[in-house]
């Protein structure tokens, strides 16, 4: 593979990487100047031409989404920056915000100019206290330098960015849950349509974009759409609906590897390359048993699927839900998938907002069945029950409002199908792995 120069992470190792001065010394805010000299429509077209796909999990093309806003809307249009990053295994937005906040702020400003918004709300998960303080300082620097506020750079463009902190709930990352939460309500995802571009925050047209997506926008303005498309994977000719997987991507690697971390690579690197070449291999000289390809919602790759390319298509071909957040979690061959799956189900059950019955009940039942198996009381029929429950919940079977439920079902379907032996062995041996920590947690919240 030819060596790849990081773009999004180019500055993070520099001293004072979060400061405006450092950013400007590297040509920061030149992309914004360039954008402001164009028409908003031309900026949108440029982003559309780059085929930048959303980095928040769904992979929807960003430029195309921006064109869904009503034309010549008289009232306010809002941008919501999705910085709720809570998918287990995922931490790239945090790194972008803590170490290079101006790259994000510049992307926000360009996006707002393109969609004619004068107000961006950055919804930040509460747990990112450091990101909050860094962003708050960076935003203040921008106001002082005339890069935010009224009449930015003398062009007549106005923009305010508001930092809004969440309160520790995964569902606030779902775009309409985020909107409800911002409005001061419980974060119950809305039934769509209407989509946020038509009726979103405060009932106004709204675009929701992920932090990494917006950081990419900055570089597309600087270097052009052809540059962006020179990185990554072109559309699969066998799939007429594939738009390709272009651009650099931040991959997070954690779990049982020697060197966990976040690396920037062209979209399409395989799970094996990531583990062996960028994360120092599986720890303790062991082998990988299972690999989460893009956050736990996406399910699992088995050891013989590690050559799957992690682009927008690869994980799906291997039976996973998709690329998701490109967060790779490695599970070694000494770990039981029963324990891993239990952890995933418990998370989803804890985070289900509860408004759809199949999701609320399904996640809870799947967790209880796995609890029972882990307590040594499992039956072989439980495995079919798990698959059946998982098959009945989600947007894909059409029984729920949001995708949390599909993300809860997928790890179950994949685990039982690809690692059935682990479950059967566990049940027939009468093993137990309930620790007193779990018993303790059962009593809390």
């Amino acid at each position, binding site marked *: 593979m030819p060596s790849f120069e990081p773009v999004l992470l180019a500055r993070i190792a520099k001293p004072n990487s979060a400061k405006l001065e450092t950013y400007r010394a590297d040509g920061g805010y030149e992309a914004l100047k360039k954008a402001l000299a164009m028409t908003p429509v031309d900026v949108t077209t440029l982003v559309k031409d780059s085929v930048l796909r959303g980095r928040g999990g769904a992979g929807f093309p960003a430029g195309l989404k921006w064109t869904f806003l009503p034309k010549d809307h008289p009232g306010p249009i809002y941008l919501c920056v999705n910085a709720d990053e809570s998918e287990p295994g995922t931490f790239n937005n945090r790194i972008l915000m803590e170490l290079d906040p101006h790259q994000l702020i510049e992307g926000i400003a360009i996006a707002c100019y393109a969609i004619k918004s004068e107000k961006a709300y950055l919804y930040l998960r509460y*747990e990112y206290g450091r990101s909050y303080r860094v962003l708050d300082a960076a935003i203040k620097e921008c106001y002082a330098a005339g890069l935010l506020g009224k009449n930015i750079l003398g062009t007549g463009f106005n923009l305010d960015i*508001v930092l809004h902190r969440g309160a520790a*709930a995964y569902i606030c990352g779902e775009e309409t849950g985020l909107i409800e939460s911002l409005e001061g309500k419980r974060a119950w995802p809305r039934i769509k349509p209407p989509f946020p571009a038509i009726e979103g925050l405060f009932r106004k047209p709204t675009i929701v974009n992920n932090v990494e997506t917006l950081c990419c926008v900055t570089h597309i303005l600087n270097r052009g759409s052809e540059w962006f498309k020179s990185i990554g994977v072109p559309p699969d000719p066998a799939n007429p609906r594939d738009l390709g997987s272009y651009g650099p991507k931040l991959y997070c690697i954690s779990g049982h590897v020697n060197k966990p971390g976040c690396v920037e690579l062209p979209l399409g690197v395989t799970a094996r390359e990531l583990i062996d070449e960028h994360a120092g291999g599986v720890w303790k000289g062991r082998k990988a048993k299972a690999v989460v390809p893009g956050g736990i919602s996406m399910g699992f790759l088995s050891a013989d699927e590690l050559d799957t390319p992690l682009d927008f298509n690869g994980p799906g071909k291997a039976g996973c839900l998709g690329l998701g957040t490109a967060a790779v979690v490695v599970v070694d061959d000494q770990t039981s998938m029963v324990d891993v799956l239990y952890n995933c189900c418990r*998370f989803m059950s804890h985070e289900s907002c509860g408004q759809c019955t199949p999701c609320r009940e399904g996640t809870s039942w799947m967790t209880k069945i796995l609890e029972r198996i882990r307590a040594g009381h499992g039956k072989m029929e439980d495995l079919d029950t798990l698959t059946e429950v998982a098959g009945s919940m989600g947007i894909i079977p059409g029984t729920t409002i949001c995708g949390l439920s599909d993300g809860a079902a997928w790890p179950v379907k994949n685990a039982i199908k690809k690692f059935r032996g682990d479950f059967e062995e566990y049940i027939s041996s009468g093993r137990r792995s309930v620790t007193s920590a779990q018993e*303790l947690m059962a009593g809390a919240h």
Partner: protein
Amino acid sequence: MPVLSEQIRERIRAEFPKYPDRRAVTLPALHIVHDELRQVSPEAIREISELLEIHPAEIHDTMSFYNFFREPDRPLGKRRVWVCRSISCMLRGGEELLENLSHKWHVGPGQTSADGSVSLEYAECLGACEGAPCILVDDECHMNVSEEDVERIVGKQ
């Protein structure tokens, strides 16, 4: 005597211009009050509702959804220590860490130590999985921590 000091009220009012309607100030207001008082009492909710000009039930509804804000029956200790229990941390000892701290401090997750110095919580993925196991102390993250590290960080034996 009102529960919310004039200073707290000022901080809440300072949020108003950021949003086109006051209900959107619910979470910011709850955070301001909770940070300061380590709990949000029904009286505090009533006073917030007067400032935001919405019904107290609307605030309570939102607040109870998040499971984050403590009510007076379970106020927080001086430091709130969240131990991550999600997948990457679990694979690298997060659950054992939680268990050991719990035994050592004689508190279950969700409880506050008898001396009021720490509240222990479990957390779902803190977004710091490269540093598993990790903890959050109030809103500051610490990565790759052992039991001893945690005790040093929060100053509790």
